[in-house]
């Protein structure tokens, strides 16, 4: 066997990393290189430097340190029983690749994950060393996201938090039963305790220290997690319940939903079909409703006996159609909370409605100018010179507002 080239390693270890949905480079503390004279900055909102034809943004160099792994999680391309080709980067190679890509403005930074080789501490130790070298030896100020290994030693977690902007631990699947069945070596209890530990570290370090009154740096971008959708039979209700639990328990910045995607060397334990992309999309919308629109998890799925989100219409519209007694809402009088419940009005549109109506009464066309499209909004609001009349309660409202069924691209 000939020696593997850097390019081959990159191909293998980025292919191995692509099933992780997160690519966010936002939420980091503001930082630039003016003082350090190095390279790198993070200014709050992340930047997507490219887009692949799967529509996903490419913001970070998302790679695995190695795809050798002692775990055998059936949904994972890197599981120990998989016949995928294996490779392993050296610490130097990852550092150099990150810098070379960053200097050409291809990326915002590094998202490093890894298969677990020999021991969790050994693997985590190398990941932390990469982050340390980038920060300390190369004065790298770009974004670093480290996927932490739940079983690693607390000292390593501490060091990881010092260098990284964000840390994450994947819960993998919405239920413990799912993890036990599909990832038999993973311990959901350990994953929870690791997330709890991360939360307390992040909270502890965000307090100014007694002596210097400054804050120690610890994962300023917080922690996130990912769960795979469609690999087990969990309905959306279970998934959203898990998310609500995770957000409230561990103060996560994000829960990522990753539609289970067929992998090149598949296990017989899993459905062999195309990833449920629309379902994934609806889950993200529902997640947004919980975090920014004041919806409770059980409200979103009320009236859906199978516990699944409506794939044909977005969850807010579905909720409104099922709760028409709450409508119409008067855009000139209703409070923010109720405006946020109107289909088609986003947080920004609501903000602008509240601003504008202090100075003039809003007509339907004014609202149309403040939001993306008035079609969805119209049946649910009262405005100056406009009442929806019987429209709100019309029997065919759903059919009117549901987008015409289109064939999904290619599939």
């Amino acid at each position, binding site marked *: 066997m000939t020696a593997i080239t850097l390019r081959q390693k990159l191909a293998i270890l980025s292919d191995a990393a692509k099933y992780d949905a997160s690519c966010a480079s936002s939420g980091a503390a503001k930082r630039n290189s003016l003082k350090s004279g190095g390279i790198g900055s993070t200014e709050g909102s992340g930047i997507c430097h490219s887009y692949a034809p799967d529509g996903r943004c490419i913001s970070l160099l998302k790679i695995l340190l190695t795809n050798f792994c002692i775990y055998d999680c059936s949904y994972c391309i890197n599981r120990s029983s998989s016949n995928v080709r294996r490779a392993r980067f050296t610490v130097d190679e990852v550092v150099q690749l990150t810098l070379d890509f960053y200097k*050409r403005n291809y990326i915002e930074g590094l998202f490093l994950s890894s298969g677990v080789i020999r021991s969790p501490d050994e693997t985590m130790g190398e990941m932390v060393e990469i982050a340390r070298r980038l920060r300390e030896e190369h004065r790298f100020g770009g974004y670093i996201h480290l996927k932490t290994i739940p079983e690693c030693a607390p000292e390593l977690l501490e060091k990881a938090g010092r260098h990284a902007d964000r840390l994450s631990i994947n819960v993998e699947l919405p239920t413990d039963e799912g993890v036990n069945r599909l990832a038999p070596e993973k311990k959901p209890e350990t994953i929870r305790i690791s997330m709890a530990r991360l939360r307390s570290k992040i909270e502890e370090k965000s307090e100014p220290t007694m002596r210097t009154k400054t804050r120690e740096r610890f994962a300023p971008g917080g922690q996130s997690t990912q769960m795979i959708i469609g690999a087990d039979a969990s309905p959306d209700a279970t998934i959203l319940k898990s998310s609500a639990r995770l957000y409230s328990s561990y103060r996560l910045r994000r829960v990522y939903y990753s539609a289970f995607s067929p992998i090149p060397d598949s296990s017989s334990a899993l459905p062999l079909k195309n990833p449920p992309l629309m379902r994934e999309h609806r889950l993200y919308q529902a997640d947004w409703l919980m975090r920014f629109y004041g919806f409770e998890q059980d409200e979103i799925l009320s009236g859906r006996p199978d516990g699944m989100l409506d794939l044909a219409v977005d969850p807010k519209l579905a909720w409104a159609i099922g709760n028409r007694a709450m409508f119409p809402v008067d855009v000139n009088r209703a409070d923010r909370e109720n405006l946020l419940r109107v289909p088609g009005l986003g947080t920004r549109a609501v903000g602008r409605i509240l601003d504008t109506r202090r100075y003039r009464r809003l007509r339907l066309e004014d609202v149309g100018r403040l939001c993306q499209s008035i079609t969805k909004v119209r049946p649910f609001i009262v405005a100056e010179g406009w009442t929806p009349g019987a429209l709100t309660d019309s029997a065919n409202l759903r059919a009117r507002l549901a987008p015409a069924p289109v064939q999904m691209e290619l599939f």
Partner: protein
Amino acid sequence: MAAIARSLPRMTVKLAGQTDLDGWRTAARALAMKGVPADQVGWTIAGNASADLFAGTDHAASEALPGADSTTFTVPRAFVELAETVVCHRDPERFALLYRVLYRLREEPHLMKIGSDTDVRRLEAMAKSVRRDIHKMRAFVRFRRIGGGPDDRHVAWFEPDHFIVEANAPFFVRRFTGMRWTILTPLASADWDGTRLTIGPGATKTDAPSEDDAETLWRTYFASIFNPARLKVKAMQAEMPKRYWRNLPEASLIPDMIRGAEEKAREMVEKQPSEPAPHHAKIQARHWPAPPAGDSTTQDGADARTLAELSRTAESCRRCDLWRDATQTVFGEGPAPARVVFVGEQPGDHEDIAGKPFVGPAGRLLDGVLVEAGVDRDAVYVTNAVKHFKFEPRGKRRIHARPNAGEVKACRWWLDHELALIRPDLAVALGATAAQSLLGKPVAITKLRGQVIVRDDGLRVFLTVHPSYLLRIPDPADRDAEHGRFLADMKAVKALMG
């Protein structure tokens, strides 16, 4: 600086450059204060063909508008910020539009808040377009390296929609401080030599290097990170429109990636699962040996001989469903044997995260009162009637939910075994749930507070409130009074301890 020309009845203001905000501001302020209506003013850029039409009619601003700077004219901050962005737009009408809005602001001071106004909307749309262009430049500039070693330089060719090079250059300085770089565009260039930023004239694509070795690796990455089973071409193009592609080294791969995707995805779906990899069995044997035969996994803790053993068994307790949402079992803590056991209701948010009882606000309050009452904290064992946190998620918080009778009963198993191993001569029930667990029946705490009930097994149970009750009293005077009562209770406990 701007010069103002009077070509009756119109005035024409000639600005020094495409993004001459200062010139516009000076002239616009003066004109607005003089009450010159927007349709009377034209705006041109020095050196532009259109500006030359008015050549010869120019006048200096001070001449045309005496005393223009003597008074101030305040405009909302939102307008100033918007203007800073809008001047970068390529639309030649931008200065006129800005002036019209400025003029209207004299009579309509809240205009900027009227998001439905046509002029405001147009300004906002222009600003949005400029901001997007700025963002896309930050995203899609691709540097190519010239030379190697310490003398290397990075040069990029980019084609923006608007006049944004100067506005955007400081971003690249902040980000690539330690590099020497140049960004070339058709209308302007920005150069950073490591210490100084220079904005220069436009250039052509051929002035920039045509390749860079790193692009091979970048293209490899781009092709590998793509998941063919998730093809969404429209989503890609919405964010990365085709007009940018010609300057993106990775974009030439896209057509082939799209063409091959369907087949690749179908292959993955149709391919039958293969035999486990050859090394798999070895890894399993080495890292995940099967548990030795006869090792029962249904330990219930009944035969635990120490609290540590009991606590370990409780970690995987499934006696009720509360484990599903909680982080971990929070077992009791303290010496064994101990004279007195304090029993609370259930762990709270802090306890659930830390895995220790009474470490949150209520725990700290209890600690303080125990010190005040002179109870030796080290002689006390603290635990809860229910060992998992029961809560309702509310956004980023968890709201305490009261355990029901079934859950209390299920968890009593652990409390009974704790008591059996500790063998205290006094238990303190903090609140109704603890009392119910210790006495096996609902108890009216408010009525029986401060009393001792002796159980059938001889254990004395002292009844009082849970310290979290004190934390919820809003009125300071009431809270002080209740604090006093709770302190008295703890003193009684101290006396009962003997």
